[in-house]
């Protein structure tokens, strides 16, 4: 496994780190430079090819608004939008999404102006603990873009892949409906 390449100390090591630190320097495996179109910017990331988009967003880019609940594609918590469509960041590799427009929760507001969904979620208490909220907001945004006035059943079906344990979903449905009216 690449993580465990043992470093052999050599006499001609060109720098003078203390030995107890030097032995921890090791081969970290091949990294790649990825170019991502993220929240309207082009960003470059240096990361191992097997690192998921979720990990790259959270750990390399410090965009921790994208959450993780299972890292197996079951809960919807890590939802981002790819070219406007909901996708699970825990099941994607950065190499797959180069060239696509990625939107995370950090890119939902325009400047300091919140998206109407963000306003209504906040007003009605549709975010309780708030952990599933980013994924649900992005999924709802994708819905409203393709269907600006969805009925309640359509909202339920669109959001059925996003689990929430706090709200009983009721306030979320009301907030999406209110946002649709206001948009």
């Amino acid at each position, binding site marked *: 496994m690449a993580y*465990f390449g043992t470093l052999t100390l050599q006499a001609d090591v060109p720098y003078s780190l203390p030995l107890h630190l030097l032995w921890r320097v090791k081969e970290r495996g091949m990294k790649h430079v990825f170019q991502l179109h993220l929240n309207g910017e082009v960003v470059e990331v240096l990361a191992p090819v097997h690192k998921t988009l979720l990990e790259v967003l959270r750990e390399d880019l410090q965009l921790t608004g994208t959450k993780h609940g299972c890292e197996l594609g079951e809960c919807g918590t890590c939802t981002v939008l790819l070219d406007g469509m909901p996708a699970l960041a825990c099941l994607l590799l950065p190499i797959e999404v180069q060239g696509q427009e990625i939107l995370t929760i950090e890119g939902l507001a325009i400047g300091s102006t919140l998206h109407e969904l963000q306003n209504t979620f906040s007003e009605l208490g549709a975010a309780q603990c708030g952990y599933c909220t980013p994924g649900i907001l992005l999924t709802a945004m994708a819905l409203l873009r393709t269907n600006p006035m969805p009925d309640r059943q359509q909202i339920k079906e669109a959001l059925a892949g996003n689990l929430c*344990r706090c709200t*009983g979903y009721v306030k979320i449905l009301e907030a999406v409906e209110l946002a649709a009216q206001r948009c």
Partner: protein
Amino acid sequence: VASTYSIIGQPVPARVDGTGKVTGVTRYADDLFLPRMLYSKLLRSPHPHARILSIDTSKAAALPSVFAVITGADLPQPYSIMPVNQDEHALAIDKVRYVGDPVAAVAAVDEATAEAALHHIEVAYEPLRSLMSIADALAYPEERIHDYNRVGNVHRVVALEFGNVDEGFHEAEYIREDTFFFQGNTHLPMEQHAAVAQYTPDGALTLWSATQTPHYVHRALATVLGLPASRVRVIATPVGGGFGGKSDMFAHEFCAAKLSMLTGRPVKICLTREEVFYAHRGRHPVLMWVRTGVKRNGAITALHFKTFVDGGGYSSYGVASVLYTGALQTVTYKIPHYRFEGLRVFTNKPPCGPKRGHGTPQPRFALEVHLDKIAAALGLTPVQIRRPHLVTPFSMTVNHLRITSCGLGDCIDAVVQRSEFLDKVGGLPFGHGIGLACSAYLSGAGLPIYYNDMPHAGVTLQLDRSGAVCVFCGAIDIGQGSDSVLVFIVAEELGLDPRDVRLVTADTALTPVDLGSYASRVTFMAGNAAITAARKLRAQLLEVAAEALQVTVERLGMAHGRVYVTDEPAISMPFVEVARRAEARFGTLSASGSYTPPPLAGKYRGHGVGPSPAYSYTAAVVQVEVDPDTGWITVPKVWIGHDIGKAINPYLVQGQVEGSVYMAIGEALMEEQVFRKGVHKIPSLLEYKSPTFLEMPEVDTVLIESLDPEGPYGAKEAGQGPLLPVLPALANAVYDALGVRIDEIPITPDKVLKALELRDRGQEPRVGPRGVPAFSFPALRQVERPEEWLQVVPDPGTRRP
């Protein structure tokens, strides 16, 4: 009565933390990244029950990029949330007691390295007989999971009698016995538990953790790590869902702290989803037997209740849990004689603990289904067996619980009327049914977990000359809205815009103690502390304002950022001006308030569980559609009436009620924490079924405001009580739909089909336990009924406005 409040009870934006949560800015524990941070992983037992013969960590420790490896020997001090049973170690020392029991911990440069290093730790186990059920635990007393409990695997046994139950049964005109089983289930918070520890060479430790109880974690960390509590700081990060699942202290918190001490670097740990299923501390599986005597009109003459509680591998909250399975039966209907026998056993499964309703949803399910069976036998409707026999407001129960406000009658009337229950029950087509049930829950536990006479909650306010107030409180917002409640209360008292009230919460170094977000205690207790603190500050501000405006203090009010003369509102002064004058007069402005519940405990062993300064009440009607060919149950609608006392914010309360209904639907229909040979059968979010948007019924919520005399503005709890009646109401609805009884939770399609098959074969159409184990409880502890039994308790005179 028109509300005189500008914020309390008004549909103002529900949450003060909303913006952070909808923008992704809120930092949960796993969102914290510190410079030089290491990552930790725990090695967990693959055996449900085994002796540890040896642990060799040398190979793992020698790996590059591994910085430290620890075992039980590094953290020898035991701990537990309950002072009476200090039976846990951060890492197992001589024995493992469930699959997933932590054995060793690694700190490494990243998660993958730490995970891989676990495979290089060599542990030799000697497997022991594993006890996987209540029956096993009782059948093999010689195979002891712990050695500190008196006999076998009996963790705790309770046998209490209030009044004279035999006499009560003698007076009965009908007596019925039933048995029920409630399978365990788990909280399933969307956020996995995570913590970051940072120890600095000056001897100070800081732990950021997703915890509902930073105060208890603080105490335990100091003890286990051998540090003075004054140098340990616990900061509860915003909790991404708790439901009781983050109210215990956990191995990973101690391990991260110890690893940080050893390495001198910050250490983060985040449990995987699978680990969260094993960390658990969720709903106990409970087997129950109930015998009730009633008059022909449904009045209860005596109740005898037995519970057999499957505790898992450790004590956790278990001493309280088993008492809770017997405590609150008396709080809804008049019960003149009551006997409770309860037993908690150790088994080789992840320890159970508190989940929303802590120990009370199981007996409430049994009691409310049992009452419906009695009603059917007596020819009474589900309303007739309940409505006339409710407890009297301001009375004592037979087991010494003080009831204050009670709006249960109004709750029942509301849901019965709105659902057209009496027109529907017994009259819907086959496959369609409707059911009713009631419940009560605590607004905070009346007694602390460790006995002391200090406040349960404290709030400090600091006012600066900008006109902003900062609230310091140990309470942690787990989604229930405690941050918002604190801000709304202070803003109301001082007439401020909520945006001018800031918060510092849940930091043991900065905030006064609040015992934690459990037992539905925060609005009631921290809310009362906030009112006290705010009124002290208000008195100082009004004193200087009265001088400046040349009026008496009594004529002044505070609202909309101004101090004004109530009968002549044109005469006023901006709040910020008053604040400046007050600071000039009194110096730096601050005020503290605290809350201690009144003395509520009865005089008997076990009295610590059940008392509360106020009880919330709930009634639920559930309508179901059951497909007799598949057994599939659909719930189109739930009507729920909740006696909230007073809604501090209607959106927040509705959110709590709806969330409770949701969680109840999940428990009633699909959620179960089940094991095969000690291994969790379904430890993933896909296979552990929980309701999605598509399964969630429509909810008709009615809030009943009974204005409790001791609650803040009259408020009581909202976060747990509304879960309780939904499960039995659903079970009663399934009976109404099909004429079969499922006396087990969850009510799954296979059980429905089995019951229908039994009916077709001419057998009793029921699925449920046939009996309870032969266990001889110890001699009953006879407790006199309180002298003021059934008399009205005088209003204590501390009514809040």
